[in-house]
């Protein structure tokens, strides 16, 4: 395969109401295994994918949000969340599950960065490949 490309996954759908969030995460994990440079964007209703304390037992589904915690192990360390999307939805940083990754100096660092929308525009413009779910 040619020189490594940067992949940006854009997640805009709420979890559970549709399967897109779950099946997108399966693609992210595969991309992580390819050792690509991977960034994730959560915006619009996609921010609900990261909420704490999800419990879909009552709707008969499994809690796939725990899988986000494994992203650090796949070297998926750059997770961008749209500030405006959180704000419109009455959410803030404390509503999101903490996601971390290890660094070469042995310290664990947070993977989630809350950014203004204009910065998401820059990330999209800078990507080699855009995947939408």
């Amino acid at each position, binding site marked *: 395969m040619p020189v490594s490309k940067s992949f940006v996954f854009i997640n805009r759908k709420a979890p559970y109401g549709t399967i897109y969030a779950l099946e997108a995460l399966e693609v992210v994990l595969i991309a992580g295994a390819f050792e690509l440079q991977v960034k994730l964007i959560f915006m619009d*209703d996609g921010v609900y994918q990261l909420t704490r304390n*999800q*419990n*879909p037992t*009552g709707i008969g589904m499994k809690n796939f949000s725990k899988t986000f915690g494994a992203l650090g192990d796949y070297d998926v360390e750059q997770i961008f969340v749209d500030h405006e999307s959180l704000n419109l939805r009455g959410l803030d940083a404390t509503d999101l599950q903490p996601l971390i990754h290890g660094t070469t100096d042995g310290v664990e660092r947070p993977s989630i960065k809350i950014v203004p929308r204009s910065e998401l525009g820059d990330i999209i413009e800078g990507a080699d490949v855009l995947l939408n779910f």
Partner: protein
Amino acid sequence: MPTLHTVNKSPFERNSLETCLSLCKPGASVLLIEDAVVGALQDTAISRQILESVASGVKVYALNEDLQARGLSCGRLIDQIGIVDYAGFVDLAAENTTVQSWL
């Protein structure tokens, strides 16, 4: 002849809740299910419209199982919204004379 209106999509993604609230009558009930339960949170872009509907005599509910699935069950919901489970959904469908699903 009160109607139960169900809405299943996020009000931040689609217009179905807004349309529903724009024409439902005093005495009607609106039940948020599936992704629409995100509309039950306080201080969102849709919360004022919900409170106006409640003030006009519309009863608004959210399905507990869907709230819990999305981690939204922790005291952050609009006070005037009633919480029901699937059994309560069935009761609402039986108590009202028709059910309008805003798909």
